[in-house]
């Protein structure tokens, strides 16, 4: 059993920090810190971020500003205007993301929910592409480039060839997987062979990919005939992921890519939690030196996990090009690759956690569109709230201080925020 080897070495690895209490956040191991922590913490972070976002909406609201002009005369006016602005924006967001009571038919009323799932699809897949490397101790911020490469290859297979129905779609999907896997694997390969930092590599590859798609969509091979815009031909039906609810009167955009994403989550969950490869990857993430001592090939681990991550991000590209957009544009990856980072962090680098985080952020995105349309609140507030959630989550002591949550690592201490320095000093 290969699983026994690392176990034998484990004591040596954990013996390094003399203080057993250092486990949770004092020890800078990314994987352990991300996987630790409770649901209450995530909820606290969500509430705090939404509250700050609401404050921002209220503070920039013209009616609130006007009422604030006579704040000392009638403070309630300001408060009620602020409440109206923030609550109105969030209500519009909810109606755009989950359920719209103003819809005429039931299908109209739940269309927002299907939109949320559609937007969440690439987020789930790209989120996994960030989450898995996290577990192996790598920070993949190159999901954006990997999505673009996946979309490029699968889009090309889609519009350039005429193939029978089932075969074509399969090839489109495989093409996307390969495209993403190469782009991701390249990072792993360079990291393993030269020791270059994966963050720098993936930032650079993101920009190269962004320029590559710009470049290619201007060439006759990729550009739509008769169009002067950088846009590819529309993919034929045989290359498309079918819609889950195909009725033409329904007009739901939700496609089978979402099911693909769920399968990917199940696969990733098995891979990282149950399989031998996953065990090795986690060992590498926990302590690469110990893993190497235990006979695990760390370099191979980096290459494998980055290739798998790239493949997952490539699938997100497939979902975009063969599912939602049906054509290749320069904005095919939108900002999914960057949002995926916050998704994976909110999901604590666990596959199912990532899944639910992606649903939440999908709801934010879908609802943000409605919010911008009806209340004029710019959709950028969504990015602010997303970033704030992650910042709060990343610093558990901060959230514990705000909400006075108990610290699982140090239940007796009253001031949670002091924990770090105290632990460090012990």
């Amino acid at each position, binding site marked *: 059993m290969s699983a026994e080897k690392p176990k034998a070495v484990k004591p040596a690895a954990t013996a390094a920090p003399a203080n057993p209490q250092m486990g949770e956040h004092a020890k*800078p191991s990314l994987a352990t810190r991300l996987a630790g922590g409770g649901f209450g913490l995530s909820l606290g972070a969500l509430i705090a971020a939404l509250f700050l976002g609401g404050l921002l909406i209220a503070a920039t609201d013209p009616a609130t500003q006007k009422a604030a002009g006579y704040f000392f005369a009638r403070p309630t006016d300001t408060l009620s205007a602020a409440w109206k602005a923030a609550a109105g924006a969030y209500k519009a967001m909810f109606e755009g993301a989950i359920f719209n009571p103003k819809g005429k038919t039931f299908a109209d009323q739940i269309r927002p929910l299907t939109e949320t799932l559609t937007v969440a699809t690439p987020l789930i897949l790209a989120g996994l592409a960030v989450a898995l490397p996290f577990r192996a101790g790598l920070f993949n911020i190159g999901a954006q480039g990997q999505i673009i490469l996946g979309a490029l290859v699968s889009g090309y297979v889609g519009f350039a060839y005429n193939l029978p129905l089932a075969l074509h779609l399969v090839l489109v999907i495989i093409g996307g997987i390969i495209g993403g896997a190469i782009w991701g694997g390249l990072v792993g390969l360079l990291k393993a062979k030269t020791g270059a930092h994966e963050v*720098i590599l993936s930032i650079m590859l993101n920009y190269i990919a962004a320029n590559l798609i*710009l470049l290619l969509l201007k060439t006759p091979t990729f550009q739509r005939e008769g169009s002067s815009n950088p846009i590819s031909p529309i993919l034929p039906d045989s290359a498309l992921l079918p819609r889950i609810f195909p009725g033409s009167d329904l007009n739901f955009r939700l496609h089978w890519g979402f099911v693909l994403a769920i399968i990917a989550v199940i696969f990733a969950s098995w891979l990282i939690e149950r399989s031998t490869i996953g065990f090795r990857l986690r060992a590498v993430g926990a302590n690469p030196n110990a893993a190497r001592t235990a006979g695990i090939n760390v370099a191979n681990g980096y290459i494998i996990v980055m290739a798998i991550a790239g493949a997952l991000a490539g699938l997100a590209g497939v979902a975009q090009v063969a599912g939602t957009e049906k054509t290749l544009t320069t904005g095919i990856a939108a900002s999914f690759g960057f949002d995926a*980072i916050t998704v994976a962090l909110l999901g604590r680098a666990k596959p199912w956690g990532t899944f639910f985080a992606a649903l939440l952020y999908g709801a934010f995105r879908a609802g943000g569109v409605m919010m911008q349309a009806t209340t004029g609140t710019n959709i*950028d507030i969504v*990015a*602010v709230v997303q970033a704030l959630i992650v910042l709060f989550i990343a610093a558990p002591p901060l959230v514990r201080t705000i909400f006075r949550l108990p610290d699982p690592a140090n239940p007796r201490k009253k001031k949670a925020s002091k924990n770090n320095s105290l632990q460090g000093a012990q």
Partner: protein
Amino acid sequence: MSVALDTSRTEETAVVRRWKNPIIYAVLAALSFFLIGLNAPDKTVVFRLSDGLKNFSIPDLSLNAGVYGWISVVAMVAIAAFAFITMNKGREIPRGLQGLFWFFFITGMLVWVIGAARSSELSLVTLLTGALTLSIPMIFGSFGGLLCERSGIVNIAIEAQLLLGAFTAALAASMTGSPWVGLLAAMIGGVLVSLILAVFAIKYLVDQTIVGVVVNVLVAGLTGFLYSRVLQADPAHLNSAPKLPTFEIPVLSQIPVIGPVLFNQSVLVYIMYITVALIWFALNKTRWGLRTRAVGEHPKAADTLGINVNRLRFTNVLLAGVVAGMGGAFFTLVSVSSFNANMTAGQGYIALAALIFGRWKPFGALFASLLFGFTLQLNFVLSLLGTSVPTELLAMLPYLVTIFAVAGLVGVSRGPAASGKPYIKG
């Protein structure tokens, strides 16, 4: 690593032969042979030299693209051959020759691409002035990164520092009507970003790269939101910043070519000269600099000698905010006079690339930034001249070069040893 060690010993000394550089020279010389030698356009390229001179003028520099192409190819081949011969004896070729190789490579390529364009006459002064101007935010940005990284804090948030600096500069300068207040506000904006980075990375021990990435998302969202909600509401009063003045230094600006480029510039450029000199001096010649470098390489040793590691890091991160914030002022006080959502367009990341390419050294970062600024400007100039070379290809160049640099293909780029590792006392 591609460094080949020849261990064959002569009587007294071991001869170490490193074939990497000769091979790179040979490959580039061969590439040049096919591109700028065999494929040279038979055209005369004219560089105008006398722009910006008042009392006299100097003749234009005319080169036949074909002839110059062959001259540079022959020179490069000769240097490459010489490199092989000397390396066989175990020596590197002199620095001067290495520089000469790169000079011929770059100028040869430059003449070739301009020769291939529809119009082949351009002003050297405009080209270089533009290059210097465009590299300002990258220079400030990479020096901001330098201050952080040399003391052991990874600064991915340069992008956010530039963006918030640009935003606060535009807002403050528009409100007060003074670009100087705007410049001050830009520094404050940069420091605010630094403060988040420092608090989370140093106090809460959150992974520095993660904080950086998340802060970038946060600031992009925040400035985008405030831009559309606040600045757009009243652009005349809130988003029309006066520009920083331009000075001409009397005698120096009349030196041919260099004069107008270096000494007839915006005040921000002169501030940049001072900043660069100051940081170089401080880092290499002062007590603070020695301590900063010590903390970045071996914090524990520094701590043992009585340096407060985390306080020094905190200060340096804030200082970095001041410097990078000034770079942000370039966008709204020098380049254009109003803020726009996401107007930094990833230049913070190029600044990071420049820092790495410049091997974490002040002058390295300076020249790398200038080089990247030059490719940006060349892109503009070439699209004006009507070139057949796709601009996207040139735009990829800085990123490709950075990948080669971090992968150790063009010299070894090794960062400060303790960069990215939080310091926990005890």
